[in-house]
């Protein structure tokens, strides 16, 4: 029996993601992306990882979605104007995304991180910090590029829509 809370949160995540791609208005798309990220934060909470959920909200909604909204509003197309289709670019993006998903998936598989204990509700802050900084320092630094990626992505999105 699947947890009904999981079904609801997963549905919110997937519907939000689909709306983010399919929305005609870029502002609605960005807001739907935010809802999808909220769903992912909910998944983290269901996995008893509230700490990760808090940072998921603050980084991905508080920074990434805001950056996208900001760029779209400043340099994007006017409200109601439909974005142009980019068949080749979307194919390229799909290949790129699936490559990253593959790499991320293989990294996130059970074999990739041996000896990791789930940091649940009774987790010790010191052990968590030591694990993060000693064992996964490089990955942590790499993840911090996510904001740079968001800035570049938002600018590209707004630019190509205009052309």
């Amino acid at each position: 029996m699947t947890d009904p809370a999981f079904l609801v949160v997963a549905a919110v995540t997937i519907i939000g993601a689909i709306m983010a791609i399919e929305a005609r208005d870029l502002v609605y798309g960005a807001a739907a992306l935010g809802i999808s990220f909220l769903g992912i934060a909910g998944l983290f909470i269901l996995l008893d990882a509230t700490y990760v959920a808090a940072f998921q909200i603050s980084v991905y909604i508080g920074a990434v979605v805001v950056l996208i909204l900001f760029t779209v509003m400043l340099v994007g197309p006017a409200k109601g104007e439909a974005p142009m289709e980019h068949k080749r670019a979307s194919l390229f993006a799909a290949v790129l995304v699936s490559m990253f998903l593959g790499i991320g998936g293989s990294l996130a598989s059970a074999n990739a991180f041996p000896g990791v204990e789930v940091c649940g509700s009774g987790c010790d802050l010191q052990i968590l910090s030591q694990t993060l900084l000693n064992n996964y320092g490089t990955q942590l630094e790499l993840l911090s590029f996510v904001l740079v990626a968001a800035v570049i992505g938002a600018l590209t999105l707004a630019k190509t829509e205009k052309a």
Partner: protein
Amino acid sequence: MVDLPPDPIQMTIAMITSPLFLKVAIFPGLTSIGIIAAILTWLDRKITARVQLRIGPQYVSPFGGILQSFADLIKLAFKELIIPEKADRFFFILAPVFGLVLGAGLIALIPFSPETLISNVEVGLPVFLAFVTLSPTLVLLAGWSANSKYPFIGGLRSLFQQTGYEIPLWLSSIGVVMLAGSFNLTKIVQAQSTGWFILPQLLGAIIFLVTSVAEQERIPFDLPEAEPEIIMGWQAEYPGFLFLAAQGAGFVKLYAFSALFATIYLGGYLGPGPQFLGLFWSLFKTTIMIVLVILLRGAFGRVRLDQLLKYGWTLLLGLAIINIAITYFLIEGFPAI
């Protein structure tokens, strides 16, 4: 024998008399938040007026016009909702309402006493700050959706302001977490039984206070709703009830941030006397912080956006990092020179 379904009336009674429901519905939950936000509106006007040698609200009750804000609340709630023709109705309505809900949700994380706590989240402090990061997004959406000049400028200002204060706000609270060894707000309060964190964390507390005032969009950091420049900024187009929600969210956040400051720096519910006085102490400290923040409004002028960004990224960020270094040495001992 077939089990009879439980009596719906008894179930309802059992539900509304359960402690959690009472906490969510009455104190520290919804009812008290509404009343406190209304009283804070009055307090804000009265204190600002007294600082400026005016009288402030006076007529709407024998007690210094304390019912003035309730009268305004009723007036605003019954006004006609006029939504601008060119506005984006969905976000125009959603943004202030969701902002009010978020502000009220912050209160659920604050331990007013060991028992008076709705949700004891293990990582309460980051969850609180994470909720808070959502509000500039909503302000931007609100400003954009009104499809009007001043609201949009206000929304953009809110966003610029966030980039200035957000990082110092998070970094300044790290000192507390280092001293307490936990993100849990109840554990942070208990860790202060040997001494309030305001003493070892004086620098961090000042940065936290400054950045949290910036987050609440209060003078001297009320750029997104600067009345003389951009006529209430992102709230300019809001009618009746939605204006009430937008304004109310600001006062609920004032309450929540003051309560958080009292919790992480001033020992929360700790204080002299028997344990049942804990609720009194936490509310007393919260009130002191609220009055202090309101007094700032009477004492300072508004900063410019470039000043806020400059000092946020240089002075406040630098001091926050210095504060973390000081806290490290406080824990590990100062190196012998």
